[in-house]
């Protein structure tokens, strides 16, 4: 059964147009000009229970707008949403008990209190009896490795530690779905990796459905089995991670260091990316030509070192963005 059902969802914003110059500013006071920005256009998708789903797209694509409609923050202009069978706009409070949210850039914790006190505060928000809160904190403390700083005021914590606490705070009431909006924004790679591991562990442990937005592709590559790509307010792609890779990973990059200079030109299925004489980088379209075939052109005896790799996911996604933009 689908845990999130979105049908033909749309959201428009009325935005005041600001023009330059004193004259226009004065005009705008009397008669402001507006334009309609269609942030989300007629999108539909479903999410199954226990899934870890990535919702990605460039800045301004409509990711946050969608997540805010799913959590009951924004009212849609059109379409219907059912989260756990609940209409987020009609029964906001009822839904709030069932979901957890972490908005990467917004802090919900009191900075002068310790994480422990903060968690108890969140326990009170969700009307959880004292004894159960304490048990839950203990459990999550282990899972998210908070032992070292659970009694340090939040303002003295590092950004990574804070995000971990933010996530724990949103799990105190055992939500069925966790919405993570850009959870790793502003973190360094090591901390990012650590957060990802913890999220994965949490999903395994509690079977919590995770709905994740991010513009960091490695977040998604490492966490999610399914991807929804959104651009200009529309769903561009809704597929499994595997399919995405399979369909868009039909190209290999061959990076070779040669003993002798080779003269190679673009041929059917082969594109020269870089040619510095002894160092060569070519892209092979494996639907048209096999890698082995390409290697023959290089004369295997001459190769000192070789590296064959997939096209990075980032490039694939930006490719998809571009294609959609043209259409």
């Amino acid at each position, binding site marked *: 059964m689908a845990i999130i059902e979105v049908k033909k969802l749309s959201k428009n914003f009325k935005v005041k147009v600001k023009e330059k110059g004193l004259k226009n500013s004065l005009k705008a006071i009397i008669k402001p000009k507006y334009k309609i920005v269609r942030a989300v256009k007629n999108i539909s998708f479903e999410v199954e229970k226990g899934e870890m789903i990535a919702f990605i797209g460039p800045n301004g694509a409509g990711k946050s707008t969608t997540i805010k409609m799913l959590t009951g923050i924004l009212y849609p202009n059109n379409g219907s949403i059912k989260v756990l069978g609940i209409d987020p706009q009609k029964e906001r409070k009822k839904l709030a008990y069932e979901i957890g949210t972490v908005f990467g850039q*917004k802090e919900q914790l009191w900075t002068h209190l310790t994480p422990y006190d903060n968690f108890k505060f969140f326990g009170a928000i969700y009307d959880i009896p004292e004894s159960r809160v304490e048990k839950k904190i203990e459990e999550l403390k282990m899972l998210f490795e908070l032992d070292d700083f659970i009694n340090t005021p939040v303002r003295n914590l590092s950004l990574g530690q804070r995000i971990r606490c933010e996530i724990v705070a949103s799990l105190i009431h055992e939500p069925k779905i966790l919405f993570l909006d850009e959870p790793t924004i502003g973190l360094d790679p090591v901390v990012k990796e650590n957060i990802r591991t913890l999220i994965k562990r949490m999903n395994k442990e509690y079977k919590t459905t995770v709905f994740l937005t991010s513009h960091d592709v490695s977040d998604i590559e490492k966490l999610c089995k399914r991807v929804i790509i959104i651009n200009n307010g529309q769903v561009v792609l809704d597929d499994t991670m595997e399919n995405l890779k399979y369909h868009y990973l039909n190209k290999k990059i061959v990076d070779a260091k040669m003993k002798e200079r080779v003269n190679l030109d673009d041929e059917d299925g082969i594109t020269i990316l870089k040619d510095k004489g002894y160092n060569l980088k070519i892209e092979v379209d494996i639907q048209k030509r096999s890698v082995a075939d390409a290697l023959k052109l290089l004369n295997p005896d001459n190769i000192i070192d070789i590296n064959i790799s997939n096209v990075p996911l980032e490039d694939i996604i930006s490719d998809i963005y571009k294609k959609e933009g043209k259409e």
Partner: protein
Amino acid sequence: MLMVVKNQLKISWLSIKYALIREMLNKTTFLTNIIFMVLNNASFIVQWIILYSLKDNVGGYTFKQVLLLWGIASGTYGVAHFFFKKAFSLSDTINTGKLDSYLVQPKNVLISAITTDIDTSALGDMIYAYITLFIYGVTLPNFLLFTFFCIIGGIFLTSISIILSSLSFWFSKSDIIADTGNGLMTNFATYPDGIFKGIVKILLFTLIPVGIVNYIPVRVMVSFNLGSFLIVIMATIFIVILAFLVFYKGLKKYSSSNLMMAKI
């Protein structure tokens, strides 16, 4: 239903408590803020001493009654700004998308949003209010009435600010309207209504309801009148309901921080 109210109050109480703890982390600043506010209010006594040296009755008020008017004014202001500080910057909360965090909680958005912070100097206002009551002459019924009027007036002022700030859901620049409206209420609050005549006087009991918050309570305290007392209560209930209605009507138009992003 009762459980819901109880849980809501618990959250508001915890928020205020935590905010107070934070303010008290720096004891010197905390105390200076309060003391300065008491002095601030007290400095205006000079003005009234001079005015009453010219005339022993200003606008139908004796000197002590003007002090009581000051007491009610700073008491209501103190209650409003101490417990509901964020109601007075609600426009900003709406315009910058800060309502999000309250919208994902299973609590009343409006109440959570306005009880999330306190204004320390408002404690000074409340202290000053009781100082004036002591000068005026304190009795038990007096004390209870005064406290009641300060609380109910504080709620009234808060409601006005919520209504005006909620206009931000429709027009983003309306924070100026809210500031002006709140300023109006405080400017008139400390002057006897007897000095105003005609339309202004009507306005002071309707559109700029200083009369409900300040003038009637002083009259009721000087000589009790059940009718006037009930008018204050009814008016407060009315404005509180109106505040909730306007806020929730506007909430459907809430655009989070998306508008700001669109501007960039």
